[in-house]
């Protein structure tokens, strides 16, 4: 078989996908990179060089938004990874009602972000919300979940965890299932405790799933917009603003050039944080 002339894996397989991707994603993206160098009001453009980037980096909310973006992404992806793994271990240990629990944990994934946002906005209402009424019933003080500036971002992260942990758990369940039971058998014969088994066998062998969970949740955490917009809109004030919501607000205000400059910055941030991870992921895969 001469692979050089006639590969059984022809590149034209990529063509239909590439056509759609190039036309509807790549071309607009490249165009937007150009617009980030202009003052653009949708009707006219004026080339202003790096002025938008300078202006964007001068935004008072920006530093706060950058810090929030990283906090939010690390927090949501970290907790989804840890809790997802623990839940997956629990749900593969032959529990009573295991199948039902697996289903239930996945339910929130099914609800749209707006639906979740509306529901939790009311559940977390400072005076009438069920959450605070519950706290009050057991004698605890009410909490300004979404209205306290120091808490709002973390409350949204908590909702994100609730909504997203089901997917992480599912990926982990699949990952756990691919670990051969022989390892655990051998460990048990050697007298390893369950905690030792978890640390020495489960954690290392489930690593492909961990990488998937971390990468997906980190990227979606960094780009996160819908849920924040549906609950706090970045508020109160600017206290739960993330990069994506700052960008969206520039867009809404009609500062299109500024907004695309923000997009470029967000892209760079994601690339800086995620690319090393992706490269590492590919290398380890190639090693296998």
């Amino acid at each position: 078989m001469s692979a050089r002339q006639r590969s059984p894996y022809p590149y034209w397989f990529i063509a239909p996908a590439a056509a759609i991707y190039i036309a509807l994603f790549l071309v607009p993206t490249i165009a937007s990179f150009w617009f980030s160098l202009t003052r653009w009001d949708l009707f006219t453009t004026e080339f202003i060089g790096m002025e938008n980037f300078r202006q964007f980096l001068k935004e008072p909310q920006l530093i706060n938004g950058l810090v929030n973006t990283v906090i939010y992404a690390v927090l949501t992806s970290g907790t989804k990874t840890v809790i997802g793994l623990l839940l997956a271990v629990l749900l593969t240990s032959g529990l009573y009602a295991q199948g039902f629990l697996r289903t239930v944990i996945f339910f929130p994934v099914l609800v749209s972000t707006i639906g979740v946002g509306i529901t939790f906005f009311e559940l977390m209402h400072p005076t009438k919300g069920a959450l605070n009424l519950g706290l009050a019933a057991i004698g605890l003080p009410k909490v300004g979940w979404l209205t306290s500036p120091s808490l709002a971002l973390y409350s949204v992260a908590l909702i994100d965890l609730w909504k997203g942990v089901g997917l992480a758990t599912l990926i982990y369940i699949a990952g756990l299932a691919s670990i051969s039971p022989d390892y655990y058998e051998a460990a048990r014969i050697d007298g390893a405790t369950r905690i030792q088994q978890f640390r020495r066998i489960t954690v290392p062998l489930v690593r492909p799933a961990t990488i998937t969970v971390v990468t997906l949740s980190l990227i979606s955490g960094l780009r996160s917009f819908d849920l924040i917009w549906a609950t706090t809109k970045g508020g109160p004030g600017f206290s739960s603003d993330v990069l994506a919501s700052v960008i969206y607000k520039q867009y809404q205000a009609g500062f299109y050039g500024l907004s695309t400059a923000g997009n470029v910055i967000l892209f760079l941030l994601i690339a800086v944080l995620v690319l090393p991870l992706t490269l590492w992921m590919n290398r380890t895969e190639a090693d296998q």
Partner: protein
Amino acid sequence: MKQRQYINGLMALAVASVIFIVPFVYIFLMAAKTKQQASTLDFSWPQEWHFWANLVEVVQTRNYMLLLAYFNSTVITVGAVTLLVLFGAMVGYVLQRRPSAASRLVFGFVIAGLMIPPAVVPTIWVLQGLGLFKTLTGMILIQVAYGLSFSVLLFRSFIATVPRDLDEAALIDGAKPWQIFYRVVLPLLKPVTVTLIVVQSIAIFNDFTNPLYYLPGKENVTVQLTLFNFQSQFQSQFNLLFMNILLVTIPPLIVFIFFNRQIVAGMTAGAVKG
């Protein structure tokens, strides 16, 4: 051991029920209340059951807008997911089977697609240029463009678990590349395909920002847009708002319950190699 598992199970069941089911119970109860009772937002049993009346009212709002929205959302979801499965598998297949500089470049674009936030206005210009703006076709292609990266990644890692011997055996039998893919490889991808269908159809069915931009027009409304629209209209009618949430959540719920077993099977079969 058996008993401890039973007790642990019951405890986990209790905790998970509180955390994961209570918000749904809340949605359901709110959807069944009268306007007055719903406005207090509290977690209580409806004094009068207005479930059916609320349902009828939401469905009838603005000339049965919700029914049209169901239709549009279904068309978009089915169309986009079909293409995502087919094209995603084709790309993932070539990328996995044919390591080369070109493949690495394509893979770089796949990762970029996952990371770069889409640019709305230039995209609208392209759609207009192609005559696809405000059309369901255009919306389907947008969802394909935005969802491709995830599909390719998932298929690529799954195809790694399909033995190459199979393709080579087919090749020796004189099969053409397309036949190898379509007849030999694709059927083996069924588990991951099911996973992908579920994950993507939920994402697309629940998407609201993209239809908001690319699919304006009354006749193009999608289910999430109805929710978005009703949010302000029903501001003082939480019973109707929550009924709407309930109604738009049901289709994904059905898809999930229907495919539940296959999803886990699909992922288990090795979709998470990377």
